């Protein structure tokens, strides 16, 4: 498999008032292979959304580089990036705000192709609507006439209009009810199989991620703490944080586990050493002094912990 998108030592920092810095993403390196689905998971403020946007050039990184098919796309001007845009698309969580309420669905769907001067718009829309499971009667209607699930289907269709090779989906199902969520999860999986498009799923829901992704990268306070095959990682997590996250998912088939103590620390003042040591049930003296680097523990499996569980 060839590497489609690669990030090297990517950081994104925001300057705040009073001279403080919010380190949303720190020193992240990752690769997405052609046709592969990578999930970025973590709690709010872990930097997963910022990372997802930075990866496809929505906002320049503070340092580090992003390569698409081996060519550097970070640091390019908006003009220069425009050539790459059709190949990378984004699906947002809130499908109600991504559509202009005063334009018809057909209009909105056609727009990306018009902008890039493509022809055969009508056929393309027809094919895509069929693929996302909607009839072409929706074209003359307005966004408010659709349910959340239908709007998310349209949203996905819009993102696929230009035939991208990479799709970044930020919490594509978290605003939906369980029964609708299952439909969208299935749809994304089908589309991935039939179109061979690579995906980056940003989500906080481990069960959804397990269903949709091939690989998983768990983030905590702007850094990747564990990465590997999704089934393997969730079967036997190596990082204590991954395990805590997994245990905290409320499931009908198991009792409430003892929760992790405390809150996620502020990304403005992250703890010294391992960022997780303030909440880690297995913390050792070394954890508060020395930050663990990501290291390989098995084939295709990395973890940033001094005392991994594997």
């Amino acid at each position, binding site marked *: 498999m060839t590497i489609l998108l690669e990030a090297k030592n990517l950081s994104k920092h925001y300057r705040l008032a009073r001279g403080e810095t919010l380190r949303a993403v720190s020193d992240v390196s990752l690769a997405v292979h052609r046709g592969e689905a990578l999930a970025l998971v973590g*709690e*709010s403020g872990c930097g997963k959304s910022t990372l997802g946007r930075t990866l496809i050039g929505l906002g320049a990184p503070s340092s580090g580089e992003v390569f698409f098919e081996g060519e550097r796309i970070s640091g390019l001007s908006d003009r220069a990036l425009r050539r790459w845009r059709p190949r990378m698309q984004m699906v947002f969580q809130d499908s109600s705000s991504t559509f202009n309420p005063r334009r018809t669905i057909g209009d909105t769907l056609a727009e990306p192709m018009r902008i890039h001067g493509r022809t055969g718009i009508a056929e393309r829309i027809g094919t895509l609507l069929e693929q996302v499971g909607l009839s072409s009667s929706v074209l003359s209607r307005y966004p408010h006439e659709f*349910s959340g*699930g239908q709007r998310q289907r349209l949203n996905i269709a819009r993102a696929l209009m230009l035939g991208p090779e990479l799709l970044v989906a930020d919490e594509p199902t978290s605003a939906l*009810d*369980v*029964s*609708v*969520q*299952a*439909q969208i*999860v*299935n749809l994304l*999986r*089908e589309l991935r199989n039939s179109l061979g498009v690579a995906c980056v799923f940003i989500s*906080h829901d*481990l*069960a*959804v991620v*397990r*269903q949709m992704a091939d690989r998983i990268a768990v983030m905590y306070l702007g850094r990747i703490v564990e990465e590997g095959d999704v*089934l393997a990682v*969730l*079967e036997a997590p190596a990082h204590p944080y991954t395990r*805590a*996250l*997994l*245990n*905290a*998912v*409320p*499931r*009908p*088939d*198991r*009792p*409430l*586990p*003892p*929760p*992790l*103590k405390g*809150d*996620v620390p502020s990304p403005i003042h992250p703890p010294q050493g391992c960022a997780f040591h303030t*909440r880690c049930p297995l913390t050792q003296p070394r954890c508060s002094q020395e930050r663990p680097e990501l290291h390989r523990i098995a084939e295709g499996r990395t973890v940033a912990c001094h005392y991994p569980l594997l």
Partner: protein
Amino acid sequence: MGAEMLLKLHHLHLELPNGTALLEDVSLNVRRGDALGVVGESGSGKSLTAMSVMGLLPGLKASGSICFEGRELLGMKDREWRRLRGAGMAMIFQDPMTAFLPVRSIGAQIDEQIRLHDRVSRREARARTVALLGRMGVPDPEAAAKRYPHQLSGGLRQRAMIAMALSCGPSLLIADEPTTALDVTVQAQILTLLCEIRDSGAGVMLITHDMGVVAQTCTHVAVVYSGLVVEQGPVAAVMARPLHPYTQALLEAIPPLDGPRPEALPTIPGRPPAPDARPEGCVFAPRCRFVRPDCAVRPALREPEEGRHVACVLYDA
């Protein structure tokens, strides 16, 4: 099951002034020491049920019966209901950021509730507030009481909200999606707190869309669909063997967290009916995989097994 009955909703019916029924025939029981999970998807009427118990739905017409500690609430004067609100029954909300007044310290807001119901001095009220915050696991409660909602983390805000709800020792705590706005690790903390409250003898009514949350915190569950209770029973039994096709479908739609990964998740076709377009017969029939001709008559909530209620023709003897 000899515990004292705390709340009994009997054929609660709620409609808009134009006659559209939002809730049709909701019957629920909460006993002391019970936690009842009310589960449903958005628009199912689960929050409306909670709000009508609190009497916070002016402009809607309620009929049937809401019986709290042996007193009928429907038809009660607002003055009397007000005395119950916050004291006998209290409520916590989904987003503690917007649920608190943003311009006053959380301590002042908790003090206010205490002083609304008990004649105590400001000093005494504050002392109780600080003690409560401490009991809810807020670190440095004295300082936390002086902070404003936006200065606390989401988890601490929700703890403060629970402290406020418990400030006058209510016998019923209604929690409307209390963890939806929180991260999973913090959600687990708040759910643990709710379990402790339940174990201390209060009744809890937990409104949620998450079957997992219900399973882990509640003793009983009521599944709401399109303004009706379709299934009710003890949590363990319902999770192990759901009776109503809707409950079954809802549980199956949750992606598995271990074992083999299915190629596709089971889904429910279609979507719930709007309140003004509810089917005459079983409300779930248009989406049900077991639909049959006698579904055209709306099934009543029956008790096919001890303690388990379900509204489905499959269980009509």
